[in-house]
């Protein structure tokens, strides 16, 4: 990856992050964030963030630890709500609807916006029951429907061939990479619109990581994926757009290739070339 410092220095025009004009017209906006500020108590973890995340692509959020990227990711399924002194202002829209309005059913929202976590966290149940979990809590208990959907989700998660004969075995008996794919399958089974991923491969070995990256690339045709990653190569490999966060600010948001090869901001340049972070 060639970084062009000169190009950045002669580029005097400050790019406005997330302007609608830069997007290809055929791609719809899945998530849009407007002027969002988030606090933990008195500490503002995010400052006046605005950006739009496009449908059916992978958007990476990068930045050093504590930059607010995880907080930002968790805005979309309101997982921050569990933190007692968390507050947020501004609007976050999923398909045009503000998910922080009073009328929103958070439980329903989380069915539309799935999440995969940093550490694989399958339930201590069988592989089948893990994947069927989301369907069961929606009241689907028909055996053949469950079997069909579980198989479909496991196939989508590239796990079916590994586990088709051991579906009754505990998910905890699988390897870390397989467990993470169980979690992805569990998420896919309920057919969410958006999948949030919080460093999904940071606890995995390189081979498992590579498999999941291939998988994400296939999934993006059907789902909108937002991924937080510490691994800049990963962001560069898998995502179409990348947002760089630094101490609660969105510094730069653009097409991944541009952000890594020809960033507008010096801080982005310094971060992606490994000068800090």
């Amino acid at each position, binding site marked *: 990856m060639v970084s062009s410092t000169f190009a950045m220095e002669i580029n005097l025009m400050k790019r406005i992050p997330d302007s609608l004009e830069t997007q290809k017209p055929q791609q719809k906006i899945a998530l849009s964030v407007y002027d969002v500020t988030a606090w933990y108590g008195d500490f503002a973890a995010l400052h006046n963030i605005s950006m739009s995340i496009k449908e059916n692509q992978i958007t990476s959020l990068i930045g050093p630890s504590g930059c607010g990227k995880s907080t930002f990711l968790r805005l979309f*399924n309101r*997982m921050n709500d569990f933190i007692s002194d968390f507050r947020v202002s501004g609007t976050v829209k999923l398909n045009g609807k503000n998910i922080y309005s009073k009328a929103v059913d958070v439980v*329903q929202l*989380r069915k539309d916006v799935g999440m995969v976590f940093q550490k694989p966290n399958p339930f*201590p149940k069988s592989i089948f029951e893990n994947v069927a*979990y*989301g369907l069961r809590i929606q009241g689907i208990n028909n055996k053949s429907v469950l079997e069909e959907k579980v198989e479909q989700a496991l196939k989508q998660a590239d796990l079916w061939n590994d586990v088709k004969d051991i579906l009754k075995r505990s998910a905890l008996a699988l390897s870390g990479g397989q467990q993470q794919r169980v*979690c992805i399958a569990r*998420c896919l089974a309920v057919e969410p619109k958006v999948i949030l991923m919080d460093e999904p491969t940071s606890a995995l070995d390189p081979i498992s990581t590579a498999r999941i990256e291939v998988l994400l690339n296939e999934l993006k045709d059907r789902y909108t994926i937002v991924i937080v990653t510490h691994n800049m190569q990963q962001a560069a490999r898998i995502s179409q757009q990348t947002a760089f966060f630094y101490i609660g600010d969105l510094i730069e948001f653009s097409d991944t290739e541009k952000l890594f090869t020809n960033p507008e901001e010096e801080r982005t340049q310094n971060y992606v070339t490994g000068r800090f972070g």
Partner: protein
Amino acid sequence: MALIFIFNIVKKEFFIRQLLGLCALLTVLTTFSIIVILLVEAISFFDKVPMSQFLTDTKWSPLFTNKHFGILPLFMGTMLITGVAIMIALPLGLSIAVYLSEYAPSGFKKRIKPLLELLAAVPTVVYGFFALTVITPFLQKIFPGMSGFNALSAGIVMGIMIIPFISSLSEDALSSVSNSLREAAYGMGSTRFQTAFKVTVPTASSAIIASVILAISRALGETMIVTIAAGMQPRMTLNPLVPVETITAYIVQVSSGDVPYGSIEYQTIFAAGIALFVFTFLLNNLSWWIKKRFMVKI
């Protein structure tokens, strides 16, 4: 100089080690000698009364002229009261545990848990006369034919007493369930209730079962409440409204009476004691085994 100093430390260490070892040995010896005495007396009891009669006879009347030595009525009385107690304590204790771990704010939990544990600190004799003087008269309004001594009120009060065993231990188990599982459940769109009963409770189930078994063995060994409130009439019945007698209450009855030392009546308490001991011992082992399995799983 330094050598003497080191030598002194070594000597001191040696002494401390021996002393602590002796303390440990003492408790082991005590348990061991209790078992030996129980066994010796029980063996001479079983010389006179065959084991088969002890286990199958449906009458227990060692203190009467027409002597019967069937442990079943006492066993049944014990199980009946324990059953009532568990029916009270399990739903209440588990609900409390789920509420405290999944719903209650942590400040509230910190304050309420010691208060709940107070229930186990009330002297059992107080529970006994509480059953006899408060619960029984109240229940008699609902069941007019109920006897003044009965299994129901003893069981209810005992259930209240063992609530903290279930609620506290289960709450510990639920709280130790990793938050990442809760996040996964909420992230899938689970309600609090679904998260609690489909994820956290099943995950902690082995420890919850272990806590229930501990509560059961506590109930089986409980003496004062049943002696005061349940009556002292060995009876083969599942009717909780009539007087029954438990193994423990029978032992009290004989111990506090004037039964001659070494007589068959005297030896019955050892037979009854060992029956109870074997039963609670098995239960404790079961709970230990379940807990061990749980530790491996998490």
